[in-house]
């Protein structure tokens, strides 16, 4: 199954399993073992615990993103405030000034858009993640309660099984030992120098043969016991395991929800604030009228100003 079939874009590192991820088959030390083998259930426990860390990582990632957005928001707001002030002081006038002012306003509007995104992250997504993590990963001493439960259950199911396996090992060893002894005794018999010795050793060989047969039966019996027990064992292990699977599935589903919510907050195309910013600006741009501005200026400073012209001033006696 190829999970990573996407085209690479400049800044993307093509995702490939690193040595520590569950997918790095060759290098992962847990790989290639059978689940039912002793102790191997620990990989399921580890997965449960990882869920906590993964949630933390996701929180961290979103938090960093939220901060980046807020930094941007603040820069834009500062810029906007500054330039409103600058414009007011400037020598601009009329509709031209108004439109310029509107361009500055886009700064704070854009800031609002990103502010929404940031607060979506910090006020909705991250708290939800944190709450979920808290609910599912209650801690008791150094372990999480849930994982401790699972561990206990796996342990108790596997206890008797491990005993069986030990018995098998033991009986196998005894059997091998008996075989070795037989071999050795047979060699000794062959090498016997006199008949008396040979007879004694022949007896020994018989005993050894009986031992081997006895040990072999015992060995086979322990294996049979194991085979009998196996379905029950498997079923019990599977049952505990299914519970870990459920626990994990819940996590995966929750993460999916989280990604989806995040995706929505990125989708600014249908953002009403952006829409309004666009509309305001368009409207404003329509009012730009350089002819009007020029005319206004002419009225106030140009040819239409009230001029004082020299006129005849009658002499007035200064008394």
């Amino acid at each position, binding site marked *: 199954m190829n*999970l990573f079939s*996407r085209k690479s874009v400049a*800044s993307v*590192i093509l*995702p490939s399993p690193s040595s520590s*991820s569950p*997918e790095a088959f060759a290098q992962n030390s*847990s790989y290639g*073992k059978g*689940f*039912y083998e002793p102790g*191997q259930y620990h*990989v*399921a426990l580890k997965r449960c615990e990882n869920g906590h*860390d*993964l949630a933390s*990582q*996701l929180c961290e*990632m979103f938090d960093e993103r939220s901060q980046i957005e807020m*930094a*941007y928001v603040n*820069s834009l707001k500062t*810029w906007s405030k500054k330039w*409103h002030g600058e414009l007011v002081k*400037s*020598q601009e*006038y*009329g509709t031209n*000034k108004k*439109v310029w002012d*509107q*361009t500055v306003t*886009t*700064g704070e509007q854009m800031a609002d858009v990103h502010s929404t995104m940031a607060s979506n992250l910090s006020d909705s997504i991250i708290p939800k993640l944190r709450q979920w993590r808290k609910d599912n990963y209650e801690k008791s001493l150094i372990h999480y309660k849930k994982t401790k439960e699972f561990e206990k259950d796996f342990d108790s199911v596997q206890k008797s099984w491990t005993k069986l*396996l030990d018995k098998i090992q033991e009986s196998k060893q005894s059997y091998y030992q008996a075989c070795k002894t037989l071999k050795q005794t047979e060699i000794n018999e062959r090498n016997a120098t006199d008949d008396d010795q040979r007879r004694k050793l022949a007896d020994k060989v018989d005993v050894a043969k009986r031992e081997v047969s006895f040990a072999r039966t015992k060995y*086979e019996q322990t294996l049979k016991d194991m085979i009998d027990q196996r379905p029950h064992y*498997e079923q019990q*292990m599977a049952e505990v*395991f299914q519970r870990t699977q459920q626990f994990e599935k819940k996590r*995966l589903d929750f993460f999916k929800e989280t*990604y*989806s919510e995040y*995706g929505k907050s*990125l989708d600014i*195309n249908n953002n009403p604030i952006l829409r309004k910013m666009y509309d305001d600006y*368009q409207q404003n*741009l329509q009012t730009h009228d350089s002819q009007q501005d*020029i005319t206004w*200026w*002419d009225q*106030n*400073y140009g*040819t*239409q*100003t009230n*001029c*004082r012209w*020299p006129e005849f001033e009658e*002499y007035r*006696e200064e008394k």
Partner: protein
Amino acid sequence: MILQCIMSQTTPERILSNPWYGKGFFEPNQYKVAIERCKNGSDSCGLFTKCIQQRVNIERDYIGALKKWSLTWQKEIQRCQEYGSNKATWFASVIAGEQHSHTHSEIADKLENVIEKISQYQKDNYSKSYIHTRKVKEFEKDFEQAQKGWLKLIRKLEDAKKLSDEAKEKLTKSEPANRAIQSDSGVSDEQKRKVKETVETLKKESAAQESKFNQLNEDMNNARPEYEKNMTTVLNRTHEFEKNRLEFFKQMFQDYHDSLFRIKPENLEKASTDFKKALESHNSTKDIAWWNSTYGTGSSAGPKFEGTINT
């Protein structure tokens, strides 16, 4: 917006406090307000450039931060304990998050184009190059030229008025004394005659000055249409110059708008589509099943009989 400002006293709209306001354009030196406006145009260009440049810087900082964040988290996700479609979706969410940087990159690039245009306009219209002299200097020269003759007339008129007034004053002062002397029996006729003559001279003088003044006044009235016409012509050229600037600024505002809003929606759309696809492929059942077959109950299990070497 404009009403909010209490700060500056000298903007063209702060009418009451603007020292240029309330004067007549044709009055001496008042044309300078038109020259001021031209010069201000250049400052406006500089201001506009600065304004947008600062905006561009903000965008670039944002882009840098996003890219860094993206790279960091791509690495983290690669290393982490996630697996399956969940991992792929997580990865996709980082990529989607980075798409914004592409959009903003586009915005920044376009804004920089606007800056270039403004700089060019400023250079073309306000700087001294070896082919064009500063347009503003031209206007100033032409206004001065148009007003030169007029100023002379005004001065002449003022001088004439002064002389006329002086003459009148002298006359007025002399008349009561004359009357007194004429009716004084103790004064000789010779003296009476002399005084009378002085008064007559003063009368003539006053009349002459007044006549001169009137003539100059009439000259001025005659010269006025021509003067107004000349001044208006130059003023209209400054109007044209300013209108040109205003139109240019309007175009720049349009470009600014396009930089912000006419970004290729394809980029964001693609990002959206890609991410939605990744979300759809998220399959927790599948992931669980995979894990199960690799590490769970589907993995090989159970010891088998291992016979001895030679049995």
